[in-house]
């Protein structure tokens, strides 16, 4: 085990080269709905239990199924209203289970990125070869069902190995959502030397972290989203920032929660100079226009140290 994952160098906020977004926007804003499938009876991973109760874990399984049966269409209607294309963090087995959902997202030109096969299959304990196979399966599944390979990765249930990001870069990916170290994209060091970036995905704005872990009231969550935006928008005048809202249809789409989320989206998209975009578009723009400059600045910082 290592004290530091070695994925990026310390690089303070002050003095960075300026990031500019298309159209002179101050902030790149993206919404990342997690569309997940949890198995009722997955094989038991010795490193992490899928469910707190013995099979059948009715409470946990059924509320997650609510997201697909009820919540997905609700959130999609809200995103449509504000012309937001979702960037889907996809349990790729859902292509087989619920192709209707995939079709609706395709019709809207939403982005699909990989979130593993099932959210009840963890990376823990997989050999490097097994993890490579799992990642490749997820990439192939997205390509087969959507016609395009995914550009991004969020490890299933945020379960990682030391090589997760290396493996995804080697499989042709260009960005990761697994790191929470910054409010801007940053270069990521992978063993194969590929051009690869971290795109801010925000654990703090994640509805499941807010509702399930931090137990935030719905209206307060809506206010947190607005406050998060206000500060990133203000700072984006000096150096472009990224705001992401990761969502889950079984949380944000409950009848007592969707209104607060919608109000925040109305507020955010009501501002000028907001680039409403997707994870892939942010990554492509960054890699094309700002990655080299960032690498040079990081190298210069190290040379002068």
């Amino acid at each position: 085990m290592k004290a530091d994952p070695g994925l990026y160098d310390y690089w303070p906020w002050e003095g960075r080269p300026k990031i500019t977004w298309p159209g002179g926007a101050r902030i790149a804003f993206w919404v990342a709905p997690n569309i997940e499938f949890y198995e009722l009876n997955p094989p038991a991973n010795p490193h992490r239990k899928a469910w707190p109760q013995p099979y059948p874990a009715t409470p946990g399984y059924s509320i997650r199924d609510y997201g697909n049966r009820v919540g997905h269409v609700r959130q999609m209607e809200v995103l449509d209203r504000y012309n937001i294309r979702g960037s889907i963090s996809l349990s790729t087995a859902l292509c087989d289970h619920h192709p209707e959902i995939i079709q609706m997202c395709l019709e809207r030109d939403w982005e699909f990125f990989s979130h593993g096969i099932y959210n009840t299959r963890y990376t823990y304990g997989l050999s490097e070869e097994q993890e490579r196979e799992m990642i490749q399966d997820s990439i192939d599944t997205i390509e087969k069902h959507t016609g395009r390979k995914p550009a991004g990765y969020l490890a299933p249930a945020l379960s990682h190995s030391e090589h997760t990001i290396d493996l995804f870069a080697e499989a042709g990916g260009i960005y990761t959502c697994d790191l929470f170290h910054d409010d801007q994209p940053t270069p990521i060091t992978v063993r194969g030397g590929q051009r690869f970036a971290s795109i801010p995905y925000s654990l703090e704005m994640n509805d499941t972290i807010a509702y399930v872990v931090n137990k935030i009231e719905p209206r307060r969550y809506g206010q947190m989203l607005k406050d998060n935006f206000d500060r990133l928008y203000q700072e984006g005048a000096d150096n472009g920032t990224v705001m992401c809202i990761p969502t889950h249809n079984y949380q944000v789409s409950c009848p007592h929660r969707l209104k607060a989320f919608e109000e925040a989206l109305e507020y955010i998209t009501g501002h000028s100079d907001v680039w409403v975009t997707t994870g892939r578009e942010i990554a492509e723009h960054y890699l094309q226009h700002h990655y080299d400059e960032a690498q040079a600045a990081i190298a210069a910082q190290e040379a002068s140290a």
Partner: protein
Amino acid sequence: MTLDREHLEYPHRRYGMDHDRYEWSMLSERPAIAWPHGKPLALWVNVCLQFYPLNQQGKPFAVPGGMTMPYPDLRHFSLRDYGNRVGIYRFLKAFDRYGIRPSFAINGALVDRAPQLIGTIAERGDEIMGHGLHMDALHYGGQDVDEERKLVVDALAALRAVSPSPVTGWLSPVRNESENTPELLVENGIEYFCDWVNDDMPYRFNTANGGLWAMPLSNELEDRFVIMNNGHSEQSWQEQVCDACDFLLEEAERSGSGRILALNLHPWMLGQPHRIGKLEEALAYITGHDGVFCAAPGELLGHINI
């Protein structure tokens, strides 16, 4: 150490669900449901009447809301009992004031422990549902099937002896089930149950003994979950309920299909003097809408023909 090959095999990766309990179906794609008199939103209030034994065994886990202190945990025992002695009577007054006809999910053991209360409920003629034997008699995966069958039989026998109408609904204690629970319920004359929280409308659920209705009794909006599990204020609970009411009314009108606002309540929680006002405010708000009517689950199922 690497994992066995089975961790990269997906035997249920196929169209639909990864089990055969029900059909995969999105709410937005289903035929419209028409409630009586063109009302868009049904309000279903369910009250849980519960007994939490002092000598809790906690098998296979200590039930949320149950005893947490070393024996004898008098604080939690008596605070839960408060609901059946005091809190419930505040509920009943509020229901009468706002014209609510609730259902009652009752632990079978309560029939002997609180006969006057059970008599009052029976006299009101409200719908009574099975709710297990008591809150330390959980249904759970791996449970011996005969042991579980006895829980179902005993709980329903107690209620059926006092209920003026057939008991055909069920809510498992903390919604926990074994792999056999749905079969045992059908075997014992249950027609609908409320354990699965995967929908906002009723749907058909398969068992080896025939079909059941799964009724949508939200866990995320219930008083115990919001106030005890999430630590939100009673004021926030009331706001969340009103926001849900607004949303469901709007969705019902937009989609042209009826919806259900289901409130699962505990008299030991909202029946406290400092909380009952928030329940009353929520009921006043909801019933103040012309588009809302109040009905128990059996009545709602009578309006559904799918």
